[in-house]
């Protein structure tokens, strides 16, 4: 079995967690390992809770998995929240001069690795608090059996511009952390075989940008919006070097229209945004369809609706992409499945856009767009096919006899060879009103139903040509499986891994993945799915937008839809466990889970208690308030563990029924009785009284 571990780094925004994660990721990549990082962060520059996981493995990984081997906590909060997740054989690293780790939180078989930081770094000059990270990284390298010198080399490169003193200090702190851990703690069991093959560490956003320029993108417009902004930043930084003009505009209305103007003039143009910006682009996407201008639009989805969850992932914009803009017009919608695929999708998008003269929408998401993984360099070639479609360079004798160049000539393929504005003899006007073959309007005064019908059919006919070029979906895994998991876009890898887990558990599972959303291979999908035994769509949306799309396009109704819409991506076990539940004929449990009740308690503590408490014990007790069971959460003071009260959370609705100091009158019991009695909630507690007793 290939060796792999997952390292979690917890801290607040501003703790320097990204830099530490980046150094570790580069170290792993230089040693020849594969990696995937998932950063669960918030829309904050400082503060908040940030939780970065790095899955490091000998084989390719494209999701963050289910495990936690080592926790590196840069603050107290991180220890309290994540210590219990570390698996036996793992370790917890923290700065013992600033934080303490309650042994009750530490699972059996997990090593505590406290680093007495001021002592460790004595003699290395004035140490910034943020450098605790580097000492922790040194200790980590020892524990997981990584080559210290590779990391030292990376730090050398990182701090090159800051001078020798800074380099020496950082590497000194790294070595001090390493030496301390090596002296006091045995290394974990990690029998790595390092290939030392160097691979790029990239994000999906990065690969879309690189694929776009490799594929001939010359013009990029954007308005800042998370999680798409990296594409703007990367292209702006490389604009001159790569010869791509980058224009930040005043809003997404302008962004889309700029890209269309550039596309109309004959350059390959692209823009990217997230759901809110995409909504503003909608009308112009329809214009691109109507005036037959090639353009590529990327929607890096985040949690919606509205401003929604700016820093969290979701696949909730499928309906929006399919339904963007008024009327029917040809469009292509593609959803890449991983970072490597992002590169090729961008290349393909331009070829389709120019060949068929239409808007191409790439739907990515925060998970795919922002999370880093290794890619094989041979899988992303510098030289890619560039197909520019049919062009006219000079007026044909036929057209000269018949009123001039026909920009919108009615052809069997629906594609009318286009001319670049500036060419002599081919003058035409592109109108967003419907028009005839020459581009002359047939809208207001001189409507013409016959021409309208044929022009509409011509445009839509292009979709047949597109569909014929696209690879139809195919089952991956064992045929005749007990269950077929169906997904689209970024969930490909996690579904593959969930299927593997199910197979290991004796449940034969395979996957049907869709990259091409529109046009859709409805007949092919239907033929495959009809032969499947049980079908479950797995998607990151509330309403199962893809399941509905599948039904609309193929007529096939799946047996179950497994959704996740809390802003977090799926993990393999999350899927596998729920699939087992569904196969057993039971519904997925939507009650507030214990870890969720704890997160709700943390929110309450942060907003109403100035972070002075932490949740100690949780217990689900039946029937209170709206008649639902509740979670009783015991809160204790962070500094001295004295009781602060009890928080009561509805287990079905999630309603906050308030918190109660010392004696919880709501439940008619002392907290110790609730947590120590076997019966849970005492009989006779008045359920209706609960909501009125809100403490705030």
């Amino acid at each position, binding site marked *: 079995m290939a060796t792999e571990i997952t390292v979690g780094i917890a801290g607040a925004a501003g703790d320097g967690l990204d830099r530490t994660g980046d150094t570790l990721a580069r170290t792993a990549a230089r040693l020849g390992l594969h990696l995937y990082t998932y950063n669960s962060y918030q829309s904050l520059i400082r503060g908040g809770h940030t939780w970065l996981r790095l899955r490091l493995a000998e084989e390719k990984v494209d999701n963050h998995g289910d495990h936690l081997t080592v926790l590196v906590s840069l603050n107290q909060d991180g220890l309290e929240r994540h210590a219990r997740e570390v698996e036996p054989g793992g370790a917890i690293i923290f700065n013992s001069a600033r934080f303490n780790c309650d042994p009750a939180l530490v699972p059996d078989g997990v090593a505590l690795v406290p680093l007495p930081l001021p002592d460790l770094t004595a003699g290395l000059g004035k140490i910034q608090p943020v450098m605790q990270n580097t000492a922790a990284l040194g200790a980590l390298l020892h524990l997981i059996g990584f080559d210290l010198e590779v990391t030292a080399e990376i730090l050398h490169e990182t701090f090159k511009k800051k001078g020798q003193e800074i380099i020496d200090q950082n590497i000194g702190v790294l070595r001090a952390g390493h030496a301390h851990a090596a002296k006091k703690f045995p290394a974990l069991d990690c029998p790595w075989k390092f290939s030392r093959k160097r691979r790029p560490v990239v994000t999906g956003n990065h690969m879309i940008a690189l694929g776009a320029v490799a594929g001939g993108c010359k013009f990029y417009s954007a308005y800042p919006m998370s999680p798409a902004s990296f594409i703007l930043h990367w292209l702006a930084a490389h604009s001159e070097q790569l*010869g*791509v*003009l980058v224009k930040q505009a005043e809003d997404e209305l302008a962004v889309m229209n700029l890209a269309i103007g550039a596309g109309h003039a004959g350059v390959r143009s692209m823009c990217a945004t997230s759901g809110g910006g995409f909504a503003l682009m909608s009308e112009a996407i329809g214009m691109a369809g109507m005036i037959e201008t090639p353009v590529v639009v990327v929607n890096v989805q985040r949690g919606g609706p509205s401003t929604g969850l700016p820093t969290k992932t979701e696949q909730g914009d499928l309906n929006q992409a399919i339904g963007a803009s008024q009327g029917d017009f040809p469009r292509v919608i593609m959803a890449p499945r991983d970072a490597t695929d992002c590169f090729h999708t961008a290349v393909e998008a331009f070829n389709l856009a120019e060949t068929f003269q239409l808007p191409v929408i790439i739907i990515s998401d925060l998970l795919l767009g922002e999370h880093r993984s290794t890619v094989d360099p041979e899988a*992303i070639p510098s030289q890619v096919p560039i197909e520019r479609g049919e062009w006219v360079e000079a007026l044909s004798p036929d057209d000269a006899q018949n009123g001039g160049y026909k920009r919108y000539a009615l052809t069997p393929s629906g594609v009318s060879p286009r001319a670049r504005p500036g060419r002599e003899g081919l003058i035409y006007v592109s109108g967003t*009103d419907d028009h005839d073959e020459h581009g002359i309007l047939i809208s207001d005064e001189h409507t013409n139903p016959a021409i309208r019908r044929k022009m509409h059919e011509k445009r839509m006919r292009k979709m047949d040509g597109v569909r014929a070029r696209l690879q139809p979906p195919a089952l991956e895994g064992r045929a005749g499986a007990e269950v077929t998991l169906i997904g689209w876009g970024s969930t490909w890898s996690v579904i593959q891994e969930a299927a593997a887990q199910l197979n290991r558990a004796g449940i034969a599972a395979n996957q049907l993945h869709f990259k091409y959303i529109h046009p859709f291979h409805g007949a092919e999908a239907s033929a495959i799915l009809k032969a499947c035994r049980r079908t479950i769509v797995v998607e990151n949306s509330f309403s199962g937008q893809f399941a509905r799309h599948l039904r609309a396009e193929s007529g096939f109704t799946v047996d179950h839809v497994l959704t996740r819409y809390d802003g977090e991506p799926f993990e393999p076990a999350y899927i596998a466990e729920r699939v087992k539940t569904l196969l057993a004929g039971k519904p997925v449990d939507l009650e507030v889970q214990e870890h969720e009740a704890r997160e709700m308690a943390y929110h309450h503590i942060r907003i109403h208690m100035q972070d002075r408490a932490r949740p100690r014990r949780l217990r689900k007790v039946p029937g209170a308030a709206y008649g639902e069971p509740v979670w009783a959460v015991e809160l204790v003071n962070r500094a001295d563990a004295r009781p602060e009260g009890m928080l009561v959370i509805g287990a079905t609705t999630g309603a906050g029924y308030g918190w109660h100091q010392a004696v919880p009158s709501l439940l008619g019991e002392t907290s110790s009785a609730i947590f120590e009695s076997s019966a849970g909630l005492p009989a006779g507690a008045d359920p209706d009284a609960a909501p009125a007793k809100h403490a705030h």
Partner: protein
Amino acid sequence: MATVELTLKSLEGPVDPDWCPGCGDFGVLKCLKEAIVELKIAPHNVLVVSGIGCSSNLPGFIHAYGVHSLHGRALPVATGAALANHDLHVVAVGGDGDGFGIGMGHFIHAMRRNLNLTYIVMDNEVYGLTTGQASPTTTEGHKTKSTPRGNVEKPIQPLALAIATGATYVARGFSGEPKQLTKLIAGAIAHKGFSLIDVFSPCVTFNKINTYPWFKERVYKLEDGPYDSADLMAAMEKSLEWGSRIPIGLLYRHEKPTYEDTEPVLTKGPLVDQPLGVGRELFAEVLAETM
């Protein structure tokens, strides 16, 4: 094929204008054609971009490349095209509702950039195509279909905005003064930088107040008096003059590098002529940043 001699006739579009008889936009179209003839620009090197509205139908009536785009979006489409091929003469056209209502955000930002393009607004102080509602330049008190008790909003001052925002050629024309208007348009197209011409172009059907006689009584030509169009503060003052006397002519002109001049990618020639893709070595170089 033989190049056709450049005349007003050769610049006629494939269809006749569908504007109401007497519409001010006829004058603007004619002056635009005259300016192109005067400047001797081959029509295939002109791209006319419009939004939506009566005046935005203009691209269909002139023999030049054109995009008849969306309501309010003429300027961003024109900007994208101008950046993609700065050898083209890009002329954006439209009405006051299109440019100063739904397209106002783009108007301001396009001027900030000092792009080398010309923007002609056919300003009739009313929404014509939608049959006569108040527009952003409708005067206070004016009764329209959407303001039956009189317009209560202050009209936009497009010229003052243009001067304040960074346009480098700011003019006002009147379709009842075609000689001057042709000159202003020719000057605008020849100008390197963002040029705005706000043209009084009366709507004979839906605006019974701001009519030809109404303008004729009030307008006076800046070039007839002592006036220095390089003087920013004087231009600002003139831009706000309204009432019994309304100035027309070139209010402000200033030379400075255009956006295209300062964009490094465009130093290698028009974007549309540049090679596509990334060479092997350069690709390896940018990929190495991630290792």
